[in-house]
């Protein structure tokens, strides 16, 4: 409380008593309100965990927003974007993405000493030799003797793979990894049947060969395994931590469950987690795994990043993540300087972004920076290739694709933020062609011609009957309905009739699985890892639903052959060549109507410049920087309190007093 606010309170009190008709009670109310208004800080964040950093500099805090509480921070379970974002600074992976290389993405060692070494196994099959860095410690935690984190060893990776196969853990990666890693599927099935998991029994696909070394044995070639090693599912886990944090009562106190108390090796560890409110992470004092890269950034970032090269990570001491369920408060707090960055959503879009898709002048003056990121994802409408109308008629599918104006769709419903998808692969994925144009992109004249060739001139068949097609969408919100109407109008420009069926999300998923649709809007895929296989598998004939995700039910032996070859090849020009051929096949066969690659706008404050923009890093908080002094100065400047509301308050109470007096006189 400042001397100014104290004097303000006393002035109010004196004013209250000076008026003869004010009662003591009313004065007290005025005092309380004045006190609250004068003394309250509008800063919603608690005091930082400490005042000074280990090196004597001010304690640096990074303030971020989360849309919801993380569902689980168990590395073998966490799959939703919020949980992964929180887990990323806590739990390191065996490999990680180079922060500055996004076209193409590049893997670098994290907990491993080097990238895994591929070898041919003597009995057939492929293996990868891996070696962990020595001296990496788990976070200090009560689950370890004397609370000191122990060294990470190869047995911890084996334990992680066992947890992947444990049905009770519910690891989302199991469905893919069990097809490649030896013994994973068998272990899962055995545990499922016996309803218990034997952690003493090793998994044949993961052999510990030394204190720090292990081998992963695969049933078949699967170079994408390296990407899985850059995900948390395969992160080493301390058995002591899982056993300690069992959610049960010990010595009169309930312990957390492991999924809410991760014990990792990352640059931060959880200092406080107030459910549904905030998570505070504190720098791990023993963090030694990685340092800031020495190269890789763009020339325009040289001045900012060169001084950081080779320095110890992380650069901030604390990360404060506040849970916001609504977007308006995020915008308000960002404006006040209480958040270091924010995504630009629909609510604040027109206030922040100009029609030319630039940052509005008001925010530029404040030093705010605007960033546009393209996510490795593609959204489209799935066309059912087993449908008797669409399936055998390629020209009809091509006509539908030509009739859909993706750009208008993005302009109307997405503020032109995403980019039009010209091909299945998004930018940054090997095989993506920058100058490629979808041969069946929007062209209404061409669409009408193709429709006629398909046997439906002006949308009518030979018997003069109007072609009727069903479009399945997710329904519920007004916006979804408008989008469905837009899609309908696009196709109906051809003279055909489109019947829109609105479905709850789960019902649409069911239809996609059982093939009960003709066109399904809103289909899409976000990359689990930046590899063409992770997109083309959506059209591989052995991936038909319900087991697989080939919802279009596309079956092309030539495509399958190329996929099988491409999927098992190491990255390189030959592989890219195959990916290009596959793209051409899909472009011609049109098993989908391409829509967009998702893209986002985000803002950063002048004191928190953006260091990296790799979407696969889930935030990359270990690289984040903060200019503490600038933030303090600007916050003080942006949050001044005017005095006039106090005068209004006094006037209101004076009016109340007048009413009372009036009442007494009348009585």
């Amino acid at each position: 409380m400042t001397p100014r606010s104290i004097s303000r309170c006393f002035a109010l009190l004196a004013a209250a008593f000076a008026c003869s008709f004010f009662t003591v009670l009313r004065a007290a109310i005025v005092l309380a309100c004045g006190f609250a208004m004068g003394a309250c800080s509008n800063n919603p964040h608690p005091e930082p965990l400490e005042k000074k950093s280990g090196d004597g500099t001010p304690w640096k805090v990074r303030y971020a927003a989360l849309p919801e509480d993380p569902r689980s921070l168990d590395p073998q379970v966490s799959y939703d974007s919020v949980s992964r974002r929180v887990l990323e600074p806590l739990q390191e992976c065996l490999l990680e993405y180079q922060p500055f290389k996004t076209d193409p993405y590049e893997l670098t060692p994290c907990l491993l000493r080097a990238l895994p070494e591929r070898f041919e196994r003597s009995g057939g099959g492929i293996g990868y030799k891996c070696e962990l860095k020595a001296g990496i410690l788990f976070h200090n935690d009560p689950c370890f003797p004397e609370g000191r984190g122990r060294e990470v060893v190869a047995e911890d990776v084996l334990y992680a793979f066992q947890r992947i196969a444990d049905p009770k853990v519910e690891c989302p990666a199991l469905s893919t990894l069990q097809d490649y890693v030896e013994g994973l599927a068998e272990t899962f099935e055995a545990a499922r049947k016996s309803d218990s998991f034997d952690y003493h029994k090793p998994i044949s696909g993961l052999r510990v060969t030394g204190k720090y070394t292990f081998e992963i044995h695969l049933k078949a070639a699967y170079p994408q395994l390296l990407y899985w090693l850059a995900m948390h599912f395969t992160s080493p886990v301390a058995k002591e931590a899982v056993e300690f944090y069992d959610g049960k009562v010990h010595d009169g106190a309930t312990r957390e469950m492991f999924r809410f108390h991760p014990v990792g090796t990352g640059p931060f560890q959880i200092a406080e987690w107030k459910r549904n409110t905030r998570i505070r992470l504190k720098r791990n004092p023993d963090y030694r795994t990685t340092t800031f890269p020495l190269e890789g950034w763009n020339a325009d970032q040289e001045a900012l990043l060169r001084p950081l090269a080779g320095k110890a990570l992380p650069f901030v001491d604390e990360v404060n993540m506040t849970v916001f369920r609504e977007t308006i408060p995020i915008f308000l707090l960002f404006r006040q300087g209480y958040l270091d960055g924010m995504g630009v959503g629909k609510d604040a879009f027109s206030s922040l972004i100009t029609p030319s898709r630039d940052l509005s002048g008001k925010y530029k003056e404040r030093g705010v920076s605007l960033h546009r990121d393209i996510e490795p994802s593609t959204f489209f409408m799935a066309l059912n290739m087993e449908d008797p109308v669409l399936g055998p008629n390629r020209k009809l599918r091509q006509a539908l694709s030509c009739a859909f104006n993706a750009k208008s769709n993005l302009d109307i419903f997405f503020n032109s933020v995403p980019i039009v998808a010209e091909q299945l692969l998004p930018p940054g994925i090997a095989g993506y062609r920058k100058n490629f144009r979808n041969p069946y992109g929007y062209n209404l004249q061409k669409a009408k011609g193709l429709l006629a060739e398909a046997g439906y001139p002006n949308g009518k068949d030979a018997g003069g009957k109007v072609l009727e097609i069903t479009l399945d969408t997710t329904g519920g919100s007004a916006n979804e309905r408008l989008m469905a109407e837009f899609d309908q109008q696009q196709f109906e420009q051809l003279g055909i009739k489109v019947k829109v069926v609105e479905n709850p999300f789960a019902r649409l998923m069911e239809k996609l699985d059982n093939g009960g649709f003709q066109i399904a809007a809103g289909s899409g895929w976000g990359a689990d890892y930046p590899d063409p296989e992770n997109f083309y598998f959506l059209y591989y004939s052995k991936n038909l639903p319900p087991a697989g995700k080939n919802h279009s039910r596309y079956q092309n032996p030539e495509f399958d052959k190329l996929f099988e070859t491409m999927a098992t090849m190491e990255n390189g020009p030959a592989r890219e060549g195959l990916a290009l051929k596959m793209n051409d096949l899909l472009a011609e066969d049109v098993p989908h109507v391409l829509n967009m690659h998702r893209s986002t706008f985000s803002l950063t404050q002048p004191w928190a410049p953006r260091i990296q923009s790799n979407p696969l890093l889930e935030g990359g908080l270990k690289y984040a920087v903060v200019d503490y002094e600038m933030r303090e100065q600007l916050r003080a400047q942006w949050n001044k309190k005017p005095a006039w509301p106090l005068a209004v308050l006094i006037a209101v109470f004076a009016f109340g007093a007048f009413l009372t007096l009036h009442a007494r006189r009348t009585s």
Partner: protein
Amino acid sequence: MFAYLLRRLFFFIPIVFGVMLLTFVLFFVVQSPDATARRVLGQKATPKSVENWLHNRGYDKPLLINHTPGKPWHDSLFIHQMGRLATFDLGTSDVSGRPLREVFAQGVLPSLLLTLPAFLLSIALGVGLALYLVFIRNAVVDLAASLFCVALMSVPVMVYVIFGQFVVAQVLNYFPAFGFELSGWSTPKFLLLPVVLMVVSGLGADVRLFRALFLEEMGQDYIRTARAKGVSTVQVLMRHVLKNGLINLITLVVASLPFLIMGSLLLENFFGIPGLGNVLFTAIQAPDFAVVQASVFLGSLLYLGGLLLTDVCYAWADPRIRLQ
């Protein structure tokens, strides 16, 4: 009276059972367990992971009655869940796996910190203003106040929230626009604005209602007698009208007590107060049937408890009423 209470408590059982059955049927008619799993696990979920998710939570059992040969009829999802709830075992969240007893226990205090002060202030202000308006009834101020109350009632709560957050917190910088801290003196600064907004948004309706109640009392014979005896208007209002109007007030006040515990869905969400309203809102979005079911269970018990308490309070406030 004891027999009456016991009988009322006994009636709780079929009512709560009916409410739970209705909730269960409505939830799973709208969305099957399979669909719930798909929504929770997302678009990338495989049938195997969906099956595993259902199995681990017992959702792979038949919904109401087990018709499988060789299996007992009561080996169903609903009967299992009711058996659990009968022992007040709320279970665990379907999404996060957290014990719901812990989730609800953590949410009660923030909810009460928001709703209780707002409730008490609303009653105090509502009754005070209503008495004043009755006192100056038919005057210009009374008419103006009535119009103002109608205006207050007509504005949606969302408008108050946005106004409060934008003007008071953002432009004037007097209060935090968002956030919550349960630690000593820093707590009130987060609650002041939402409490004021909650009071203001409900004030119009309260004042209008209380004014009507008090005006009705003012027309009674005993008031005329009191006035004839020379009792002043203020004394009539404070000693007679307020006291006798209390019986009607009790119905409203006591019946709304249980809802205080369940929190405010909108305000908690917009101001980031981690109360039970927030918990329920998140559960509906997730969707987390376990949380929804437990909320309905607790809500129905609280509501029934509130009604019972209203009856008891009637008897206490009005000697003419006997509970039999």
